[in-house]
């Protein structure tokens, strides 16, 4: 069309875009390291499923319409990339056609048909998106001019391209002006317009205009399209639409194997970290680059806060704002962070210590002026999180909130020494007697008195170690679950033993509240005991223990095959080692524990057990499976007071009570306490029994 103008536009558009991107990448590179480029095939798989197939959008029944809308806009854009290349070519060379996609190739025809239909669909979707924002107003969204502006631009892109094709159609077909550009007319496949119904429709809108007018429309639409596209590109990195660029890499770089980045095993013996106060996160430079990329990528869709048990019960943790605040802090400190990283690179291990100290001092000068907790994010916000991972599971771009929150808690616990003081009682109990209740460690196995349960000290030559956990050992209600479990294992003739008073808290809650020191103390002692007895297989009666033993202990040299009791019971049933009677009366529902479901993907086994027991079948809760709603006790919240907003366990219990069931099954001692307490609060504990699956099984064995 006009090579000079085209070159000018491209140079300016791409130069500005390039500069922005370099800055953004430099900023990421200034952050802490993390290793995310292993297992390429698994990563590609994630990209295909989560990003390309838009699993978390289309697959979410609750919001299928919005999911489909977004998916089509995304797919449309992917498809239109090829078209854009063609248009840029046309800017330079009249009638430019991409190799493989040109006249004569069926690929070219198929593509042009697909592109045509997609443009129509994307346009419809953009209109729906505007309608949804303006009229339906879903609560999780917060309406900004940016959102409308971008939707408007998408509309302009589609309309301009359709009108461009429409004008071309009119010029060729009506005004007999075949010298116009980019026209396929192959004897085999016919005129391209046979393949592009939407453009032909657009043509009819302007068919009344003269040839000159159509020519003017064609040129105008061409340049409008190109200019809008370059503006769009440069607008993206400035706000939440950066995700258009970063979402794919972010999904590619997501943590593998465990649902989010595992808590770093801190080296607490290293004196310098205590002097430099460098443990955990309390300044923005302590984020790692992937956490930075997460911030770039947040689409501000609000799905996370909508499923968050704290936000929905009026606590101040609003993940959308949380991300936004951190992102602002990151950008505000961008220059200093980059300078700081350059200085850090000049520190040499074997360099002059004095000089290194000097550099460190200069680096400290460049730290963000505000500590993150207290000044940027409030303490109530930080400590509200139950680490339930509902937010991460629902996030369409796989942002990992929890590791960041836990690292911030480490900063508070280890460095600043500022944390909810109610935790002291539980932490002291842990330190002295290896359990948060602080009951004498020598009483840990008293629940098993008279049950004929061996300890490892009696006989370590057993197939399984039954890991009872603190609640199962000391909490009166949970002791009943332990007893039921023993009954089942004995009935199935399983050879097992417990550690008895040698077992200590796994340290899970200490780690979740940032007290890495206490966690490591517990883990180290337990691992010594377990390795001493050469334990290989563990049945864990608590999802939190399961998670720590299975995923966190390997960091410290504890490698075991760990199975949750529901998983184990399911196997016992399937292998015929125990038989159940289908005798449980009344409607039954199941509350998925976060650390069993979202952390360990155990959803089916508990359900299959319950189906086998219940006469009336299993009634699912509104929020179940991956979107199960937390009981409120995880993340150390069990040991903190809940003074702000509605109580999370009451919210959940109301949901359960609304199902009019006779029994709610759980599979975690903390859920058991929380839901049972919730039922009491609602005065429903007589009508709805809260029971662990182990109890239900023990009571319904043939």
């Amino acid at each position, binding site marked *: 069309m006009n090579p000079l103008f085209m070159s000018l536009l491209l140079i300016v558009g791409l130069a500005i875009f390039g500069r922005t991107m370099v800055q953004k990448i430099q900023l990421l590179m200034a952050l802490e390291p993390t290793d995310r480029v292993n297992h390429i095939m698994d990563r590609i798989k994630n990209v295909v499923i989560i990003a390309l197939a838009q699993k978390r959008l289309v697959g979410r029944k609750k919001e299928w319409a919005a999911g489909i809308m977004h998916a089509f806009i995304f797919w449309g854009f992917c498809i239109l990339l090829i078209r854009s290349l063609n248009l840029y070519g046309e800017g330079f060379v009249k009638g430019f056609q991409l190799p493989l996609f040109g006249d004569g190739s069926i690929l070219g025809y198929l593509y042009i048909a697909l592109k045509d239909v997609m443009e129509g669909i994307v346009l419809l979707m953009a209109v729906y998106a505007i309608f949804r924002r303006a009229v339906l107003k879903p609560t999780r969204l917060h309406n900004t001019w940016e959102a409308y502006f971008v939707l408007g631009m998408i509309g302009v892109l589609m309309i301009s391209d359709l009108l461009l094709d429409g004008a071309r159609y009119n010029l060729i077909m009506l005004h007999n002006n075949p010298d116009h550009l980019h026209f396929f007319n192959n004897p085999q496949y016919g005129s391209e317009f046979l393949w592009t119904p939407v453009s032909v429709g657009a043509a009819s809108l302007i068919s009344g205009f003269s040839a000159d007018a159509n020519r003017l429309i064609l040129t105008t639409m061409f340049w409008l399209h190109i200019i809008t596209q370059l503006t769009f590109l440069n607008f993206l990195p400035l706000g939440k639409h950066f995700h258009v660029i970063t979402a794919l890499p972010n999904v590619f770089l997501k943590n593998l194997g465990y649902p989010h980045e595992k808590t770093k095993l801190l080296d607490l013996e290293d004196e310098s970290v205590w002097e430099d*106060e460098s443990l955990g996160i309390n300044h923005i430079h302590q984020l790692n680059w992937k956490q930075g990329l997460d911030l770039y990528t947040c689409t501000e869709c609000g799905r996370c806060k909508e499923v968050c048990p704290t936000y929905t019960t009026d606590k101040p943790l609003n993940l959308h704002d949380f991300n936004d605040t951190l992102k602002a802090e990151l950008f505000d400190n961008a220059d200093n962070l980059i300078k700081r990283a350059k200085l850090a690179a000049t520190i040499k291990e074997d360099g002059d210590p004095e000089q290194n100290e000097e550099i460190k001092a200069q680096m400290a000068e460049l730290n963000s002026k505000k500590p993150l907790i207290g000044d940027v994010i409030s303490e109530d916000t930080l400590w509200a999180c139950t680490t339930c991972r509902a937010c991460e599971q629902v996030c369409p771009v796989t942002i990992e909130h929890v590791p960041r929150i836990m690292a911030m808690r480490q900063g508070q616990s*280890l460095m*600043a020494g500022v944390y909810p*003081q109610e935790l002291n009682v539980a932490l002291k109990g842990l330190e002295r*007697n290896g359990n948060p209740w602080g*009951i*004498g*460690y*020598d009483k840990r196995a008293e629940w098993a008195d008279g049950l004929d349960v061996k300890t490892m000290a009696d006989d370590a030559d057993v197939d399984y170690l039954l890991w009872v956990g603190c609640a199962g050992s000391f909490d009166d209600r949970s002791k009943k679950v332990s007893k039921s479990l023993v009954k089942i294992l004995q009935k199935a003739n399983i050879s097992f033993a417990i550690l008895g008073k040698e077992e200590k808290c796994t340290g899970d809650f200490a780690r979740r509240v940032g007290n890495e*020191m206490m966690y490591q103390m517990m883990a180290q002692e337990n691992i010594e005991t377990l390795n001493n007895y050469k334990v290989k297989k563990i049945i864990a009666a608590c999802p939190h223990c399961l998670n720590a033993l299975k995923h966190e202990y390997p960091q410290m040299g504890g490698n075991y095959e760990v199975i949750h009791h529901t998983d184990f019971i399911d196997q016992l049933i399937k292998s015929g080692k125990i038989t159940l009677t289908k005798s449980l009366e009344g409607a039954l529902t199941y509350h998925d524990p976060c650390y069993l479901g979202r952390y360990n993907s155990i959803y089916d086994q508990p359900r299959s057990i319950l189906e086998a027991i219940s006469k009336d079948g299993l009634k699912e809760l509104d929020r179940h499976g991956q979107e199960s709603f937390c009981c409120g006790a995880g993340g150390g919240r069990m040991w903190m007071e809940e003074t702000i907003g509605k109580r999370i366990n009451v919210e959940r219990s109301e949901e359960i009570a609304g199902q009019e069931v006779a029994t709610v099954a759980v599979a975690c001692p903390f859920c058991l306490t929380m839901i049972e307490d919730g039922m009491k609060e609602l005065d429903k504990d007589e009508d709805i029994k809260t029971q662990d699956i182990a109890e239900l099984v023990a009571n319904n064995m043939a």
Partner: protein
Amino acid sequence: MKILTTAKKVVDVELTIHVENGAIVEDGLQYVINAWDENAVEAAVQLKENNGAETTLVSIGGSDNTDMIRKCYAMGIENGIHIDDPALDKADSFVFANVLQKVYEKGEYDLVITGKQAQDTDSGQTGIILAEGLGIPCVSNVIDIEVVDDQHVKVSRLGDAGTEIVEVELPAVVTVSDSINEPRLPAMRGIMMAKKKKIEVMDLAALGTSLDEVGGAALKSEVAEFMASESRQAGQKFEGDAAEITARVVDLLANEAKVL
């Protein structure tokens, strides 16, 4: 203001104590800071934070007291004195008080804060004997300390009839109740930084005294024998019809327990 505070290491009372042949079975026992002393340490640290006092902790016992002293550092105590002398193994409150008196005399303190008693022996005498030995005032069972001026503190003590508020002239000894405060957990960073801090370790000779002088050679009291306390028998639970239960309970009370 210079404060001296004390910490005794005691057996963890959460554990069941087993007795065999008149002696405590040591196996499986663990030792912790006496809870009331923890309150004393907290009170001292609060006075340091709020009134700029200088705090010193003294602890008498074996080498395993070091950990405890470091934790007190991590709570905020500035100086630590560890009296480690095997000759004191069997010492009673009187001897401890005499040793503490020696420590006091070396340092010229304005205020001594101790726990009102120790969880292991529950005798509650050390602080009081110390004050007597020094000839300075003593207030026991204190639940609040307020600094009036350099020479005076106003303390509240829990008496039989209610709370008494007493103004005392310094130097003085106060022994504190557990309701005076909620002891903080030692800060993690404090614990790590405290590793490098020095503890002044002394035996009796280094303290400038001898077992004889502190009364340890001829003990005024000695433990003759330990006996395990009887554990409470499990209760009985009745369920069902109220009238039936009442009848059964009355019957049991009359015929089995013979209290009616």
